[in-house]
């Protein structure tokens, strides 16, 4: 398989963008990425977005994006994998370049969740489960997470799980594109009201609008461009959609498979990974990602978090710009923020959040509670 490289990235601040529409948020990110990479054109556009139909009454985002980004003529299509839609678009764009069909592609994702009430966003997220079963019962994303949290606490105890949001917020402090760029204490997390017991309000990501984009290029073009490059690999796997149909709901097999496959693709080992962007849509999912991916023994992720292992100065820094919890989680854009942030780290452009000479970064993006998992790995060139 031919090499694929990230040659540039762009993104907007995650906020409530009342004055912007979805396609122009994405166009802003796209144009920034095109300029960052220094490419003059792209062969194709891949768009990630989950909820544009229920929230904006809009489909056909491919053609809309091409027009708003000044790229009319390029083939453009939209990929959907619920909250991991950005990763689905990345997967498609990667395959396009790796196959030799395209020299350069634009992958852009966006979501404008603040166009809906929080009830409408919850309802939208519920569509990542089976609509006629979990959806019919009102077992929404938070309810499923809460049940997993209960099973986890019964088996291992909940020690340290509520600490994941504390880490993410600590890393987001002062980050200009983060939705919540401030610290919160463990006490504040523990004192926040339940959203679905035992899951607390400050253990779940908020509702925001944002867009992020990356330019993927082939080896030839990578050599000719002057921007910093990172070699990228991506893999994905699925699992039974309802977590309680799985042999062990606390082991996300999709995460394990996706991580194993991407490591194999990149001929890398877990010990080479300098940092991870986790899918911390909830605190419990952050822990399950680390444990299922083989980065923490089962039942230990929270304890390791309390010891500082996943902080900027720790053994395996996670969510170096705040993750889904504090940077923000606009579904279709989220995985592309993750890739952009790893790229900034590898290019030594991470400002005050810069890690010391990182070489390899991993991103994990999930739909639902692990119905699908996408793992991408970036290596410094």
């Amino acid at each position, binding site marked *: 398989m031919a090499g694929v490289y990230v040659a540039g990235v762009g993104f907007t601040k995650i906020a409530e963008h009342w004055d912007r529409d979805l396609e122009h948020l994405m166009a802003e990110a796209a144009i920034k990425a095109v300029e960052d990479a220094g490419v003059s054109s792209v062969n194709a556009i891949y768009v990630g977005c989950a909820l544009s139909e229920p929230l904006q009454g809009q489909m056909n985002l491919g053609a809309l994006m091409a027009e708003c980004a000044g790229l009319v003529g390029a083939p453009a299509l939209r990929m959907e994998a619920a909250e991991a839609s950005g990763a689905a678009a990345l997967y498609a764009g990667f395959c396009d370049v790796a196959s030799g069909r395209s020299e350069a592609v634009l992958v852009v994702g966006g979501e404008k969740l603040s166009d809906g009430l929080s009830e409408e966003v919850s309802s939208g997220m*519920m569509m990542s489960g089976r609509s006629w*079963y979990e959806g019919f*019962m009102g077992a929404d994303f938070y309810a499923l997470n809460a*049940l997993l949290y209960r099973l986890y606490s019964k088996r291992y105890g909940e020690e340290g799980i509520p600490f994941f949001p504390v880490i993410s917020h600590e890393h987001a402090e002062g980050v200009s594109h983060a939705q919540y760029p401030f610290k919160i204490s463990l006490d504040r997390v523990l004192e926040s009201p339940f959203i679905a017991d*035992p899951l607390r309000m400050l253990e779940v990501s908020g509702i925001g609008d944002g867009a992020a984009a990356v330019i993927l290029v082939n080896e030839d073009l990578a050599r000719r461009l002057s921007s910093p490059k990172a070699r990228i690999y991506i893999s994905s796997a699925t699992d039974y959609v309802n977590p309680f149909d799985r042999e062990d709901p606390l082991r996300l097999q999709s995460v394990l498979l996706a991580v194993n496959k991407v490591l194999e693709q990149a001929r890398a080992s877990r010990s080479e990974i300098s940092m991870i962007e986790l899918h911390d849509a909830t605190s419990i999912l952050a822990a399950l990602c680390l444990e299922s991916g083989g980065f923490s023994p089962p039942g230990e992720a929270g304890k390791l978090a309390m010891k500082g292992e996943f902080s900027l100065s720790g053994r395996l820094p996670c969510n170096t710009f705040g993750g889904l919890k504090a940077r923000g989680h606009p579904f279709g854009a989220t995985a592309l923020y993750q890739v952009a942030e790893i790229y900034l780290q590898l290019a030594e452009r991470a400002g005050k959040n810069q890690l010391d000479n990182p070489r390899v970064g991993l991103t994990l993006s999930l739909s639902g509670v692990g119905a699908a998992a996408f793992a991408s790995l970036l290596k410094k060139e």
Partner: protein
Amino acid sequence: MPFLYRLAGWKCVHCGAFHNYKPVVCKRCRSREFAQIELPASGRLIAYTIVRSPPKEFAQVAPYAIGLIELDDGTRIISQLTDFREDELRDGARVEAVFRRIRVNGDQGIIEYGYKFRPALRRS
């Protein structure tokens, strides 16, 4: 969906996997042979949560409880819980199925019914 009304579904003849929908192939072993069964209407509560920030279809009924239930044959299902005092929702509490109004759907306001579980009235 017979599952939502009678807990009826399809069991794979080869590997025993239960499907709460009519499958084309078995989700575990890809076999095409199934036996139609009805699950037992009682079991025990494994875990529960109270949904306090509801999706829009359930805004009128929130807060409401969702339980993970292990039926007497070992099948695990998700259900809304009803007719309970919160102190009855202990680990392992016996629960039984009842037929209830679930939600009012869409602009036409169709009232949808299905199973919910409640603390068992009789010790079984």
